[in-house]
């Protein structure tokens, strides 16, 4: 696991620092009013210029002996990263500071909130759809739910989000306002919004939780109203895989001998499905959790742009535009950590839940 993360960091490092000129890494620190010597000392402090380099112009024109070799740069960077020093970012922070770490993790709770709500929705919709599909194999409910799951898999995420916005903001209007808010994490101008919900204390940084903890129900409601459409967009486009796996697992399980045995005992069909079949069918389905997390994080980038959601996904695009390497590196590695940890948790969970593996 650690190996994968390490290798990932090497990959990203080489992609960014190796293929871009070394001055890119200096962008957040360099103030055009600085003197040449000042810029050079910053370049040395960040680890890209050698101590033997005579001047900044030499460094910028890549004179030999001026730029530290990539390997050395990497270890310098790794040392810093492991103590949590991610340098500075070009992106504006929420509270005005500009350290990469604080900007990233200032926005991260929004993305996390969106992804978690979307994950819950994916399960709540996807699993029953798969069960229905399997138990009514080749009949109308099966065809319909296959269309839904396959459709979700074929829909462009940006289009689906846009369509939801058009329906719920442009078409369904009450009193001149759209039903749901058009953008942002807090609904301000919409028919169902409270509008002026006051303030909350940031206990966790996650708006939904903080609103509950601050006992500010109007704020909570406005946050819920704002998160519905983007979360639904993410969920509908991600549930195809889950539904398909639940369906095929379920169909396989229903063909097993112990299901025939359960029927021969005179049990009700519904309890057969829920106490016998489901247990055996769901277990392999949790292995897609890692994949799902990957989809959700990646999908956040697009969905956040469509809904102007203040998370790290929308910031990533801005970072890409201005070549903000620190931010992108941090994003990639955080995503990598989340995915690797999810896979680990899934493996452990699988062993815990399957009594055969335990012994």
């Amino acid at each position, binding site marked *: 696991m650690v190996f994968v993360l390490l290798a990932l960091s090497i990959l990203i490092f080489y992609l960014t620092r190796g293929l871009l000129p070394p001055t890119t890494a200096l962008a957040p620190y360099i103030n055009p009013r600085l003197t040449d010597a000042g810029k050079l000392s910053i370049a040395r402090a960040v680890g890209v210029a050698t101590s033997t380099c005579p001047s900044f112009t030499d460094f910028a024109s890549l004179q030999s002996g001026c730029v530290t070799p990539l390997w050395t740069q990497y270890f310098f960077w790794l040392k810093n990263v492991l103590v949590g020093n991610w340098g500075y970012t070009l992106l504006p922070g929420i509270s005005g500071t500009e350290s990469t770490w604080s900007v990233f993790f200032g926005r991260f709770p929004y993305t996390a909130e969106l992804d978690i709500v979307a994950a819950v929705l994916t399960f709540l919709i996807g699993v029953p759809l798969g069960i229905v599909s399997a138990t009514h194999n080749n009949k109308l409910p099966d065809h319909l739910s296959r269309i839904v799951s*396959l459709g979700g898999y*074929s829909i462009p995420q940006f289009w689906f989000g*846009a369509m939801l916005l058009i329906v719920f903001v442009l078409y369904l209007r009450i009193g001149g306002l759209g039903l749901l808010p058009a953008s942002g994490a807090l609904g301000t101008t919409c028919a169902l919004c409270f509008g002026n919900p006051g303030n909350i204390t940031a206990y966790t940084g996650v708006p939904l939780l903080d609103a509950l903890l601050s006992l500010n129900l109007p704020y909570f409601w406005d946050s819920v109203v704002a998160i519905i459409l983007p979360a639904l967009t993410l969920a509908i486009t991600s549930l195809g895989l889950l539904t398909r796996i639940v369906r095929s697992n379920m169909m396989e399980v229903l063909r097993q001998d112990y299901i025939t045995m359960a029927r021969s005992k005179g049990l009700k069909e519904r309890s057969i499905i829920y106490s016998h079949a489901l247990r055996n069918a769901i277990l392999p389905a949790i292995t897609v959790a890692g994949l799902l997390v990957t989809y959700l994080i990646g999908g956040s980038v697009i969905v956040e742009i469509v809904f102007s959601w203040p998370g790290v996904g929308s910031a990533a695009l801005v970072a*890409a535009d201005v070549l903000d390497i620190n931010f992108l590196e941090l994003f990639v590695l955080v995503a990598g950590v989340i995915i690797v940890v999810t896979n680990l948790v899934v493996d452990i969970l699988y062993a815990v839940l399957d009594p055969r593996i335990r012994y």
Partner: protein
Amino acid sequence: MGQTEKNSVESRRRHSELRFALHLLRQNPIVMAGLVISVATVVLALLSNLLVNGASWHQQALTLRLCWNNPAFSWPVTNLFNCAGQVYPLGTDAYGRSLLQMIILAIPIDLQIALEVVASAVAIGVIFGSLAAYMGGLIDEIILRITDIFLAVPWILLAIVLIVVLGRSLTTLTLAVIITWWPWYVRLMRSQVIGEKEKLYVERLRMMGAGWPRILFRHVIPNSIYPILVQSTLDIGSVILTVSALTFIGLTPNPLLPELGNLSNQGIEYFFTAPWLIVFPGLTILIISLGFNLLGDGIRDIFDPRLRR
């Protein structure tokens, strides 16, 4: 039985299996719909230059010229610009070009990129996957670990970084998507070859003294490549989704390029004044990818021996 007789029995069996498969295909309306859509897309792509002037996408209006004048339908937005004469069935984009024409021009471009991506990813996947599976040991470990690394990142982040670093062009766009897809094909091919190399005929070939390249390339790969080909058909639709997602967020070589995601990109800016800019290109992407996905899904169901009753 002589060799020729064995071959003809084998080919007769495959022939009747094919007929049986086609029979099942005809019975399944969903798959037929997928087939129809996919074929229609390809035909449209081939004919696009006949329907629309291929150079018309270069023209650029000097001022903003968004308009909608299709009498059949109107949008609940204010300030619709005037179209000045011509009727545009799907309105115009910000550069004053007919959206319908741009969509028609975009289809072959998207399809071409998708085919390039799929072909390259399949090629890489077949080579590395079968090498990993057949050689086993250290080579297998290394290749597997490399795919692990690539799969530990959400694809879009990797693609963004790549395009940012390498610059914006059609080549880098294609490359970025290939980087996203190849690990899957490596894994798929690997699992196929792992199963295939245990079969008796491989053992026999080895005993006859055939070298591993000959066994691998002449026998094992052609016998295990079938699911890969099925998967790649399925993936054409998904690749178009991927490419259009990347151009939608702005990683495009040329903002004027008629590409389905690119056309929608204008839609973010003008969302509340011209929603058709996102709706119609997106709808086209949906239909095309749905067509290929339905087709691929149906083919997979038909040839899955477990699900066949």
